[in-house]
């Protein structure tokens, strides 16, 4: 396998965004270009599955940014998993977005698809980054390329949402992440991701390591740890496809992926287990899991409820990282994929409901299930997956997370996960229950009124995905084999 392909794959969507821009006048051609790009990208990323599973770690350095620090791409299993999820769901989202944007007659659709492609490019760059500087470059590129998507409507509400979005993400990254990288560089002499971590013999005190870990995790604002989570609900002013792919998959998963990556390749799982440097953030994650679920229960706006649910679910993955056990990494890694499939389905459904009926509040959904059976069935399936009930894929990630907690001797975390599941039931299953079992409001349609097929097909596929991954979780286990039990 040729290493230069890594760099080409990162650049590919960015280059194709020019083609998207050029074909702006012919919407069908434009969307064809987008979908073709996303499928080609997915195929390109997937071609690395074989070599990486076999233990290869292809690496390529393009430029020397600073003396001794290059723009480097290195592929390892976690990055590959994230890249596969992001690029795979991008193709479905593009199809969905075509239906949604046209169904709602949105303006500036070309700018929308161009920024989308740039954002994917940045996400792949994060997935493939071989050192902290490369990671940071693409991290900020992802923030900036999604800003025009968040503020797409251009009104006061989206401007304010955009302020919070950019304000928190840039503040945390420049204020915490950048100094953390430089301290790492000064302490260990390297910022290259290395199996086993960088601090083994660096003579960093436990307190110093703990502080650095805090700096890194809060610096990764995209992981939405409390109290720096407000940007995610604020980003919900964006059109729904953006919320679906970026704020359920690409952007937020970039955040938690970085947390996993830092834990494994900068600190090292064993190092964290020995020093206990991740303890503080473990409890921050636990509080975020429960706190965000509690807030989600109070939200009537469907997308806001889903956003807080995402904040909560992201911290599952942070929990997996901070429990400093390789089973936790396995569970966290799997949850990246499982949550992605379930949450993108939920957002697709929210968008489909809005497109078909222009309703966006939970309390307006009573009895709507008979008009939109496919959408609400998909919603039901995805909710079960998030709660962690068989036969849905979400069972596996929760299973490994709990096993990891037991392995690390953290039974309190098992309780946190269990309570969170109960809370999920309350605020997620309420929605399909209302749709199917409550008496419809007088103005609720009784006849078949699904959203356009371009919306319904993608959400059916992702919902089916949740079931498939329950029956067949092997691909993820193989990919994450380095952390799987022997």
């Amino acid at each position, binding site marked *: 396998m040729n290493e230069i392909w890594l760099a080409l794959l990162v650049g590919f969507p960015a280059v194709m965004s020019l083609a998207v821009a050029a074909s702006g006048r012919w919407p069908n051609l434009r969307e064809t270009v987008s979908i073709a790009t996303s499928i080609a990208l997915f195929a390109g990323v997937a071609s690395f599955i074989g070599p990486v599973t076999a233990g290869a770690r292809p690496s390529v350095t393009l*430029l020397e*940014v600073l003396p001794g620090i290059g723009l480097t791409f290195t592929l390892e299993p976690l990055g590959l998993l994230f890249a596969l999820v992001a690029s795979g769901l991008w193709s479905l989202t593009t199809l969905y977005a075509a239906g949604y944007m046209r169904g709602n007659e949105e303006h500036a659709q070309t700018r929308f698809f161009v920024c989308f492609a740039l954002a994917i490019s940045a996400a792949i760059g994060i997935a493939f980054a071989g050192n902290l500087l490369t990671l940071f470059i693409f991290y900020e*590129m992802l923030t900036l390329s999604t800003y025009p998507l968040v*503020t797409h409507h251009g009104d006061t509400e989206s401007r304010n949402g955009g*302020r919070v979005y950019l304000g928190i993400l*840039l503040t945390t990254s*420049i204020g915490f992440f950048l100094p953390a990288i430089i301290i790492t560089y000064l302490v260990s002499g390297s910022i290259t991701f290395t199996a086993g971590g960088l601090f083994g013999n660096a003579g960093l005190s436990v307190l110093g390591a703990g502080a650095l870990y805090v700096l890194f995790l809060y610096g990764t604002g995209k992981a939405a740890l409390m109290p720096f989570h407000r940007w995610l609900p604020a980003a919900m002013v964006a059109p729904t496809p953006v919320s679906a792919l970026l704020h359920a998959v690409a952007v937020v998963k970039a955040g938690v992926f970085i947390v996993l990556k830092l834990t494994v390749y900068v600190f090292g799982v064993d190092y964290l287990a020995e020093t206990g440097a991740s303890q503080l953030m473990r409890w921050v994650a636990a509080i975020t899991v429960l706190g965000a679920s509690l807030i989600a229960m109070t939200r009537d706006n469907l997308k806001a409820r889903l956003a807080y649910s995402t904040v909560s679910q992201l911290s599952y993955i942070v929990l997996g990282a901070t429990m400093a056990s390789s089973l936790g990494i396995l569970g966290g890694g799997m949850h990246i994929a499982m949550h992605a499939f379930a949450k993108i389905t939920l957002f697709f459904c929210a968008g489909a409901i809005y497109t078909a009926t222009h309703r966006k509040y939970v309390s307006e959904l009573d009895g709507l299930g008979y008009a939109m059976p496919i959408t609400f069935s998909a919603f039901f399936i995805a909710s079960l997956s998030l709660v962690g009930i068989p036969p849905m894929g979400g069972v596996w990630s929760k299973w490994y997370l709990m096993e990891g907690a037991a392995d690390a001797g953290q039974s309190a975390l098992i309780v946190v996960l269990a309570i969170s599941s109960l809370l999920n039931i309350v605020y997620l299953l309420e929605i399909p229950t209302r749709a199917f079992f409550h008496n419809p409001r007088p103005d609720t349609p009784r006849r078949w009124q699904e959203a356009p097929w371009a919306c319904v097909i993608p959400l059916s596929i992702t919902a089916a995905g949740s079931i498939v991954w329950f029956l067949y979780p092997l691909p993820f286990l193989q990919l994450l084999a380095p952390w799987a039990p022997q």
Partner: protein
Amino acid sequence: MIEQFFAQMPALVIVLPLLAAPVCVLLHRAALAWFVYLITAWACFGLAFLLFVQVKIGGPISYAMGGWPPPFGIELVLDSFNTVVLLLVTGIGAICSLYAKASVAAEIARERAYLFYAAMLLCLCGLAGITVTGDAFNLFVFLEISSLSSYGLIAMGAKRRALLSAFQYLIMGTIGGTFMLIGIGFLYMMTGSLNMADIAERLPAVADTRTVEAGLAFIVVGASLKFALFPLHVWLPNAYTYAPSSVSAFIAATATKVAVYALMRFLFTVFGAAYAFDELPLGEVLLVLAVVAMLSGSMAAIFQTDLKRLLAWSSIAQIGYIVMGFALASSAGITASVTHMVNHGIIKGALFMAAGALFWRLRTISLSDIAGLGKHMPWTSAAFVLAGLSLIGVPATGGFISKWVLLEAVIEPGHYWLAVAILVSSLMALIYIGRVVESLYFRERPEGQAVPGEAPPIMLVATWTLVLANIAIGVHATPLVGAAERAATALLGGGA
């Protein structure tokens, strides 16, 4: 023949603009004068580049003006430090010469344009002269040449307030210049020499006298006035705001950097780092002032309603970064200073050029008047946004590289409070740049206001050259940081 030319290059870089200025006056026609200015500025840039390469390969150059050997005659010295600064000054000068034509035609009366170009050439000559000279008194002379020409240039601004601003700058600048002169006089009194290298040799014998200490103090205060270090910055916002666009761009990008250069040259080459920073508490004083400048400048920038004034306050803050670097008196610190001198020169040049392009269309530059222009002037607005991101320190821009090297320099010796100040100031930049972005992209064009088209291509080319240079540095900073490291070695007396 060609060797003759190479040998004379250090002098040519000053003599060319000095001779071209009267030629502009004699030609009198605006277009011809501009052409002379353009050719001269690019020739100087070419010379600076050749000198940079020559020094990189062959080590420092010493050139005796008129054949009089130093320390009796005036010596021009080129080393790894000042060739970088020279490259910045002439590079910005060359790009400004492209930009100037359209902007001058719109802002300055046609019959006076030739004077403008002559003054720009004199200013270039003065700044280049300060950079290359190895003679303390000669440095003062060039400082005055650059200052006097810039007073004239600022006074040519379109609004009547420009006259007052130029006068304010004249008073403050003259005080600064005079302080420098007094300081140099004290040194001359104690050492009997004006050649910098020669003074440096003779100084240790008399270092403990009150006279030398006073000389140092006068030079530090004088130079600080010139580069507008807090609290000596009051002249700067008005001067930058009311100057013609191309003057703002040129002076903001170069003049303060050259003044910083002059101070660093005195502190490290003439006095020596040990004397200035170990025996006297200069480092601590400068660090505190730098932090106050960074925070107060950024804070003031947040509350401005005039785009050029906002950028001017941001400059005051950015000077703080540069001063902080060399005030650490470490190799890493000087590297950071030099890196940021170049980066800030490029960024501020680009920002003032973009602001000038908006002004060219609108004849006003207040944040409420530029509302909604993102759609109508997409290239200008995008250039402003990209350069603004660099000011915040977003990766893959030059500003990020500056921040990286500076943070490394302050965290290494454990000055975490300085790191916090740097980061807080960066985030304040996020706010003031964000305000401009929101005005450009999120507000509707005010009722009854003109809906202009894009700025002239030549102005965009100049602006985007700087923007792209800035991004190029961001993804491949090794040459710049390498040059800055060599400069630090040269200043700290490690040879080349």
